[in-house]
């Protein structure tokens, strides 16, 4: 059977309760452990296999080889010193959908997720992040 004003007691009780609102932009909100933020690139580990590029749904990752000046030609009779290739990641944060597939697929664990979530900018260019060794 319906009762008129069935909700009034709850309403009046709420007057004495602390509001549930969080003062978000003024008080920081902690993210839980394991939160999927933005991919973080550890360029020392990357071998340039491009698996993350292939699996990225949003096509937000580019892995480019760092072009370095050619090493000095080896002296006579010596084998050329092996220069490891270096890779740089260009991440379009505006396209990233934070699914963490790149981190999962990477065999060398060169990508993990950080805990950033306040991502906004006025244009696409400001949301383009490049991580990798400085090209000399």
């Amino acid at each position, binding site marked *: 059977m319906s009762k008129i004003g069935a*909700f*009034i007691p709850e*309403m*009046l009780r709420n007057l004495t*309760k602390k*509001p*549930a*609102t969080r003062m978000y932009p003024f008080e920081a909100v902690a993210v839980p452990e394991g939160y999927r933020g933005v991919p973080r690139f550890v360029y020392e580990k990357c071998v340039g296999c491009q698996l993350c590029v292939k699996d990225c749904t949003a096509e937000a990752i580019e892995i480019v080889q760092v072009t370095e000046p050619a090493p000095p030609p080896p002296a006579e009779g010596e084998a050329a010193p092996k220069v490891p290739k270096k890779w740089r990641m260009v991440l379009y944060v505006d396209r990233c959908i934070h699914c963490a597939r790149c981190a999962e697929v990477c065999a060398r664990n060169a990508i993990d997720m950080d805990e950033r979530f306040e991502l906004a900018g006025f244009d696409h260019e400001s949301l383009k992040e490049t991580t990798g060794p400085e090209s000399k």
Partner: protein
Amino acid sequence: MDVIKVAFFVLVFPGFLFQFMMAAVLEWMDRKLYARMQNRVGPLYTGQGGFLQPVADLVKLFAKEDLTPYAADKLMFALMPLVSLAAVCASGLLVPLWVIQPYTSFPGDIIVDAYLLAIPSFALFLAGWFSSSPFSLIGASRVLTQMFAYEVPFFLALLTPAVIAGSWQIATIMAFPWWEGPWWSVLLRAIGQTMALGVAITCLQAKLERVPFDIPEAETEVVAGPLTEYSGKKYGIFRLQKNILMYTGAALVAAVFLPSFPMVKLFGEFAGPVFAGLWLLVKTLFVVGILSVIRASFGRIRIDQIVVFSWKYLAPLSLLQFLVVLVLKAQGVVHP
């Protein structure tokens, strides 16, 4: 000198400026209470505790672009906000902030006040009718239907204290010595008054078009009803009008139904009127608080349901209490 006095009376106190302030304060209080009842914080950042938020909203609306639909009647579309604002401001002048108010207190002012309070609904109807959009038309027809539902019980409820006091002047009704007479007569009068207060507050809620009676402006059904096409300054004026209406309506209900005390006798010629005014404001706040609780605790009903509710329960109830009062009066127990 007299001109300046009248101008001060109309424009500053208790005229437009004072009403504007009261409207802002009451809107802030209503929003804050409503939010707290829903476990939210409500307005927070403009002024102390969001106190200036209503004013800020109004300033924002006045700065916005003002559009008039191509198909609308330009004159009526522009005129209706002003007409309704003028009507509620005039009705605000009739509220006796101290015991006898100059210029506007006269025998029969309660009738004038009740009619002035009905004008905004008509203005709203015309505004919706002349803006020529399907949502406005539906909203306009709902405004009128709803008005027929609540206006009669509201008038009947207002009559009760007038009949008890035997006067059509709000100030005289307020000055009526309700504590005099044998205890059972006081009790019977109090019961009649309480019933009338309940009817009046329900009707006031309907007049203000707030939940559960916000049928003409039901956001999820007809966008904003008659105000769908309004924007900028004109919408701002309608909003201001609604808030002033909340003040004047609540003040009228508080003045005639809630008990007053002979402040002049108690505190003297000078301090008495000040205390009378403050006491009326306290009562007004109380009425607005009840309105907020009603707004928070119910859902919106349908237009057919409000008509049924009003004619099945409200109108018989108001007739009943009116009858009780008439019988008491005929028995001579009302006048001590």
